[in-house]
C-alpha cells in the first residue's frame, strides 16, 4: 500500500462535509484533528473544498483561540490561570513546569518535544488548580507533582 500524502489525506477527510459555508468551522476542526494544527496549504484546501475565499478562511482560522496555525510540540501542556485556579496556586504550577520542562510559557521547546501554554479557563474550576495534558484534564494539581503528572501520561 502506498502512503497517502497529507494533501490527499485532507481532501479525503473533507469529503464528509457538504460543500457549504456553514461547515467551514467543522472542516477546520477536522483538519486540525488530523494534523494537530492548520498549515497554510491546508487552509487553501479547505478554501477550495468549502468554496469560501482564502482570506475568509484565514480570518476564521485566526479568530478562534483553539485553532492553531503553528505546529505544537509532541506533548501539549496547558495550565489554567483563570481566577479560580490562580487563587489555588496555578501560577506556581506554571512556574514549576516551565523550570522542569525547560520551556517558557507560550513556547514550544527547541526539540519540538513539548509546548507549554497558559489557558484562560478549563471550566472544571471545582477541582482547581487544573492542568490539561494532551487534551486530558488533571485536577487538584500540586506544583511539586505537576511534572510527574506530565510524565505519567507519556505515551498514553
Amino acid at each position, binding site marked *: 500500500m502506498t502512503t497517502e500524502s497529507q494533501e490527499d489525506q485532507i481532501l479525503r477527510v473533507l469529503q464528509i462535509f457538504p460543500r*457549504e*459555508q*456553514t*461547515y*467551514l*468551522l*467543522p472542516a*477546520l*476542526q477536522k483538519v486540525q484533528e488530523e494534523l494537530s494544527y492548520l498549515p497554510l496549504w491546508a487552509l487553501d484546501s479547505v478554501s477550495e473544498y*468549502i468554496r*469560501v475565499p482564502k482570506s*475568509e478562511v484565514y*480570518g*476564521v482560522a485566526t*479568530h*478562534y*483561540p*483553539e*485553532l492553531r496555525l503553528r505546529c505544537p510540540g509532541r506533548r501539549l501542556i496547558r495550565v489554567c*490561570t*483563570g*481566577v*479560580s485556579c*490562580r*487563587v*489555588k496556586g496555578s501560577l506556581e504550577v506554571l512556574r514549576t513546569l516551565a523550570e522542569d520542562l525547560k520551556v517558557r510559557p507560550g513556547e514550544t521547546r527547541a526539540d519540538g518535544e513539548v509546548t507549554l501554554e497558559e489557558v*484562560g*479557563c*478549563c*471550566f*472544571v*474550576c*471545582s*477541582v*482547581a488548580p*487544573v492542568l490539561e495534558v494532551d*487534551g486530558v*484534564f*488533571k*485536577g*487538584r494539581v500540586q506544583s511539586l507533582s505537576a511534572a510527574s503528572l506530565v510524565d505519567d501520561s507519556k505515551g498514553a
Partner: protein
Amino acid sequence: MGTSQEQWRLLRDRAQSQEPSGPRLLVGAGSCGQAVGALEVAAELRKGIEKLGLRVAVVESGCTGMCYGAVQVTLLGDGVPATYSSITPSNASASLAAILKKQTLSFSPEAFLWSSDSQNGLPGVNSIPFLAGQRRILLERCGLLDPEDILDAVRHGAYGALAGILTEGNPSQVIAIVKESGLVGRGGAYFPVAVKWEGCRAAPGEPKYLVVNAEEGEPGIFKDRHLMEGNPHGLLEGMLIAAYAAGSSRGFLFVNGEAKLSFQRLSRAVDQARSVGLIGKRILGSDFSFEVELRQGSGGFVLGEETALLESIEGRRAMPRVRPPFPVESGLWGKPTVINNVETLSNVPALIGQGAGWFQTLGTGKVHGTKLFGLSGNVARPGVAEVELGRTLRDLIFSLGGGVAGGAGLKAVLLGGPSGSLIPPQELDLPLEPGGKFPLGSGGVVALDDHCSILDIAHTLIRFNANESCGKCTPCREGTARMAAMIARLEQGRVPSTVSDEIENLSEVVRLASLCGLGQAAPYSVLSGLRYFPET
C-alpha cells in the same frame, strides 16, 4: 404507527422491562471527577467485582454537583441510593464490600443516603450541609442515572412532559404555561422565555430555527457542563418542547469546544433519541417533526454571545450582530430563530410537567424558579449547587460551601465571571436575583480569601476581556486593552493620582458604547474593584 399515546406507552414499557435487575455502582465521572481519577476508580471497582465473582454493573455517571467530594460512588439497588465521597483509585477496591452493604467507611467521611432517614450509621441527605440547603430540580437526576442510556432516563421520568403535550396539548398552551410561570433565560440576560418563543412562532419565514447555546465560556462557571454530562436527556426534552412551542423544525446544539465530555454524551443522547423516534420526522407519531445537528466551538468568550454564535454557525468569524433585527425575526440565514441557554431549557420539562403554579412557588415574589451556581476558588466545598432565586451569597459560601478553605478570612467574592463584580464581605446578604444590585451573570461564584490581590484579580479579568474581544467595535477592542494597561500601571505602583478617574471615565465609554453585552459588561469587575476596595 399508532397515536402518540400508544408510542409513548410502548417506549415506557420497554424501559421498564429492560430495567437492570442487580445492583449498580454509579461513578461520578463528570469532567470534574474524571480530572481527579474517576475512570481509574471505575476500573478498580470493575476489577474488584470480578475478583469477588459478583454481578454488579459499574456505570460512568455525571457529577452530583458535589465536586469537592469527587470521586463519588453511588450504590443503586434495593431501596434508596447511597453515595460515598472521596473514593480514590487506591482505596476503591477496599471500599467495595462496605459500599455494597451500605455501611459506613472510614476513608469516606461524607457518605449518605438519598432519603431523609439515616440507616446503618449512614446519615440522610438533610445532614449533608451542601445538599440540605439546595432545591434540586434540574440537578435531581445528575449523578443518579446512566447518562448514556435513554431508557434509564425514561425510567426517571424523562420525556413524560413532551409526550403529554404531544398527546393532548398544543403550542399556544405551552407558551401560555411558560408565560404564566415567568421563566426567564438563565444565560445572563434573564429575558422572558415565552416572549422569544411567541415572537418566533409569529414571525414570517420558514424554516424556523432553535439554537441551544451550550457555549458556556465564562471563566468560573461549569454548571451547564454538569447538566449536559449528568442528564443530557433533560436538555433534549426541554429543547424539543421549546421547538414545538416556537414552531421550529430545525435545531443546532452548539457545545463549547473545551466541553468534550458534554459533546460526547449529548451526541450519544441525540442518536438514542433519534432511534426511538423522539427526534426526527413525526415525533412519537405526532405532527411535530424536528431535526437537530450538533456543533462544537473552538474557544472564544464572544462565541457565547447569541448573535456571534449565529455568525459562527453560518461559517464566519464569531462577531456579534447589530440589533434590531432580533434573532426571533431574523436569525440564522435571516430566518426566525430562538436561542436558549442549556439551563433555561433544562427548566422546561419540570415546568411543563408540574405547571406554572408550582413553578411560581419557587424563588421570590419577583422572579421564580431555581438557579444553578458554580462555587469555586477559596471555598471549602467547591461544586455546583441549585438553590431558589433570592438566596444570598452568604448562604452559598458559608452554609453550602462551608466557608473559606483553610480557615482564612473572606476578602471578596467574584460573581459572574469576567463580566461580573467583585463584591465585598459586607454585601453578602443581598438576595441573588436578576435585576439586583450585582448582575448574576450566568452564576459563577468565586470566593477570594485574604491572600488574594484584588488588583491582580481585576487585572486578570480585564486582560481576559481584552484578549477575548472580537475586535468588531472600537470601544471594546481599544477600551478593554487600555484599561488593562492602566491596571498594569496601578499594579506596578507607577500611578499618577488621576489614573483611577481615567479608568472610570474609560469604563463608562466601554459600558455605554460597546456593541454587545460582553463589551458592555467588561468594566464591571474593575469598577467594582475600585469602588469597594479603594485601598488596593
